[in-house]
């Protein structure tokens, strides 16, 4: 696994811990009543799991296994930028409603998330192609 994939996968596993903890809390609150403030965590739960966990895992693994161009992964800076924007966006958009922050924080968070998608698209687009025949092996290592 290349370094970017290791960072993305580790971060996405971290988000599983955060998101499942929030989910369990929300579900317990729905069932037996924990604290009225718990509902404020719902947007954070959503952002963390949909983007931090699932989208980030997809980005990390796609970066690792998609066909390379002349043995290189191409515009790597855009992939790093995508991770930066995604993680910033998740926290801004997730925490803004939970902490009652001004609306522009939420807008910045969502903007970061959209920016992450665009940056990753710029990175991955040239790699969406048939791999050279000699590389048609399962992505075991490297």
């Amino acid at each position: 696994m290349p370094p970017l994939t290791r960072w993305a996968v580790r971060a996405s596993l971290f988000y599983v811990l955060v998101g499942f903890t929030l989910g369990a809390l929300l579900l317990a609150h729905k069932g037996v009543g924990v604290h009225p403030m718990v509902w404020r965590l719902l947007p954070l739960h959503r952002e963390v799991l949909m983007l931090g966990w699932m989208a980030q895992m997809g980005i990390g693994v796609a970066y690792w296994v998609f066909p390379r161009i002349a043995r290189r992964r191409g515009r790597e800076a855009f992939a790093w930028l995508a991770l930066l924007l995604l993680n910033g966006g998740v926290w801004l958009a997730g925490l803004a409603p939970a902490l009652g922050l001004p609306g522009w924080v939420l807008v910045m968070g969502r903007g970061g998330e959209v920016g992450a998608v665009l940056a990753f698209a710029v990175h991955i687009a040239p790699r969406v192609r048939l791999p050279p025949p000699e590389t048609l092996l399962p992505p075991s290592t490297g």
Partner: protein
Amino acid sequence: MPPLARWFVRSSLVYLGVSLGLWAVQGAAAVWALPAGMVALAPAALHLFFVGWATQMIMGVAFWMFPRERQRPFGSLPLAWATFGLLNLGLLMRLVGEPLHTLYPQGGWGWMLGASGVLQWLAGVGFVVNTWGRIRGR
């Protein structure tokens, strides 16, 4: 594909079918009056999709494809099987308990939601613990 990966992937496909089926039925609420139970199923149906289908598919493929260690290629097998069991048990408990609790708030079903949360949380922790060591360069 190791056997556990097949279990993860097969059950994720079942959840995909069931969750889309439930959505289709709920869509019919725009035309026909549906029993209240169908509407009360909405959050559980959403999570059959996100947890049952998407998360479980990722877990199965990660278990299969992530770099393997020489000594223990798949980490701890008992832990990985426990993850699979806990996730599915927790999810099914939510599928039953959440609509019942919504329909009959005084019916004493609330504990099922708490228990379901704990089971799914344990599954999440199990997956992270077992996968962490397989994130490496070689």
